[in-house]
């Protein structure tokens, strides 16, 4: 096939303005553009500096993960879920595991649930840190990036401690958690949590009073509550538009109902509000982590389901039965009762959902991911039309876009 066969289509054509000899201009932005946070291509029709239309073109990162899932055993899908949203791998792990556990009707021990909550909130923290750093960098406040990545590094070190990997941990398994956390885990998380509130103040000191930051963000990218719901927006942008909805509180999963936290809401609906809410969310995440750490129950980390959960290494080497189960799970996987489930969690970016269909075999018949920013991307045009071209960059940052999960 020729290269010309795969030439990128122009999507929109320039138009002649009524009653004038001028034509509008079509501007291509991306896919290789630093402020599109990956490989997002936007085709913009502009009149001077005003955006008239905006068409997102996605799919540059499409790897067919949903198709790949159908060829893997249930436990082999976990590492794939990491790679969907590379900024919040643990949220993906959790959501997938919860969906399969729902099909299996597994009871997860409290300690595993609490550890999942703790790690998920740390994931939210580190994801918001990346967002804050890159969002500020898009606007031109380069310094903040260095500060947020300093703290993010600490969180990634904790992830490395527990799972052996900084980012793609695959630490959660169907039926519990893969490994015991290391001995100094409690202490490291405690140190981080002690430091975080002060550091969040530091970011706010750097940004809040900054006149450039304020004028670039305030009143930009307005989205009404009705539009947000109609366009499928979830997470912080939805709450910034005045819809008081957080799955952690309203449809709790993994013991979230046992934690006390506030859900910041505002009805201003601009980029500035989304920034404020996310920073507030980071403070709440720190509180949830502290509660999880202080109240961590004792007990096992894996469900009592020998046909699903791999046995401990020690048992596998000393007990015949465990060895058989180990062999069977690794070679044949585990069969999941036929059925369809949809499990959603509040990921750092909004409602992440896994729709898992089982036909009773050891491989999922269908795994579908509902990703928050795939939906939020549709609201981009509504937020940008009629505004200046430079605002598009601020708006993209404010929906915290991750192309890995949009394209899958």
């Amino acid at each position, binding site marked *: 096939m020729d290269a010309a066969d795969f030439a990128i289509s122009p999507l929109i054509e320039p138009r002649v303005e009524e009653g004038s000899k001028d034509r509008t201009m079509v501007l291509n932005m991306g896919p290789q553009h630093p402020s599109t946070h990956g490989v997002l291509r936007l085709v913009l029709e502009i009149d001077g500096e005003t955006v008239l239309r905006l068409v997102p073109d996605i799919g540059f990162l499409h790897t067919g993960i949903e198709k790949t899932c159908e060829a893997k055993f249930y436990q082999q899908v976990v590492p794939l879920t990491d790679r969907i949203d590379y900024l919040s791998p643990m949220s993906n792990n959790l959501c997938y595991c919860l969906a399969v556990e*729902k099909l299996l009707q597994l009871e997860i021990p409290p300690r595993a649930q609490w550890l999942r909550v703790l790690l998920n909130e740390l994931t939210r923290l580190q994801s918001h840190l990346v967002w804050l750093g890159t969002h500020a960098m898009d606007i031109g406040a380069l310094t903040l990036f260095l500060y947020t990545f300093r703290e993010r590094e600490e969180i990634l070190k904790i992830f490395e401690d527990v799972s052996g990997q900084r980012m793609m941990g695959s630490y959660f398994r169907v039926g519990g958690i893969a490994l015991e956390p290391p001995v100094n885990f409690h202490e490291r998380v405690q140190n981080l949590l002690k430091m975080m509130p002060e550091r969040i103040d530091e970011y706010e000191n750097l940004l809040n009073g900054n006149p450039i930051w304020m004028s670039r963000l305030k009143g930009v990218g307005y989205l009404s509550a009705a539009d947000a719901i109609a366009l499928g927006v979830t997470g912080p942008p939805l709450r910034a538009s005045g819809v008081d909805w957080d799955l952690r509180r309203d449809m709790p999963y993994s013991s979230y109902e046992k934690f006390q936290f506030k859900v910041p809401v505002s009805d201003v609906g601009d980029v500035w509000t989304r920034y404020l809410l996310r920073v507030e969310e980071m403070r709440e995440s720190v509180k949830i982590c502290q509660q999880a750490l202080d109240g961590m129950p004792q007990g096992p980390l894996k469900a009592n389901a020998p046909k699903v959960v791999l046995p401990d290494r020690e048992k596998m080497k000393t007990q015949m039965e465990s060895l058989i189960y180990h062999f069977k799970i690794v070679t044949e996987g585990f069969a999941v009762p036929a059925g369809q489930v949809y499990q959603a969690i509040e990921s750092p970016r909004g409602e992440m959902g896994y729709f898992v269909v089982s036909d009773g075999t050891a491989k999922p018949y269908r795994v579908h991911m509902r990703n928050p920013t795939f939906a939020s991307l549709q609201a981009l045009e509504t937020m940008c039309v009629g505004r200046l071209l430079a605002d598009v960059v601020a708006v993209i940052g404010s929906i915290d876009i991750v192309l890995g999960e949009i394209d899958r």
Partner: protein
Amino acid sequence: MDAPNERDAVLQAHAQNHAIAALLAVKPACIVNARFDCGELTLWIARDDIRPVCRTLQKAGYNFLVDVTCVDWYPSEPRFQVTYHLLSHSLKQRLRLCVMVDSLDTEVASITPEWPSANFYEREVWDLFGVRFGGHPNLRRIMLPDEWEGHPLRKDYPVEGYR
């Protein structure tokens, strides 16, 4: 999927459910099948009724369209199960709607007039499954290049692709 039709039993057991009450009041025949499994309610809707059903449910409080996707039950017919996930913020309830589509006549009415967010979801289903959505404003491929042949998430499409 070959499963016993539990429609009447499920509808009776969940008569209090807002969605079921609203649909039974308007047009009981639109619910073809129903199931309650793992705490989730699924309603199979007659293909031609999906838009009116969505409108009715929107009025009944199911204000948010979470997702539209599809399952390919190849080689059984009807082959495609177009799946809609709805959410009600006020009731704190989820609902799944399914529409079964034949492989020879793969067209469902688009629900973009009810929920504009269906735009991308339906494009994705068209792209990866080849199910058409009638009345969709812009039914182009979304993930794959426009020139791509075939619909990769169909079960008769090899995992490694055609080489």
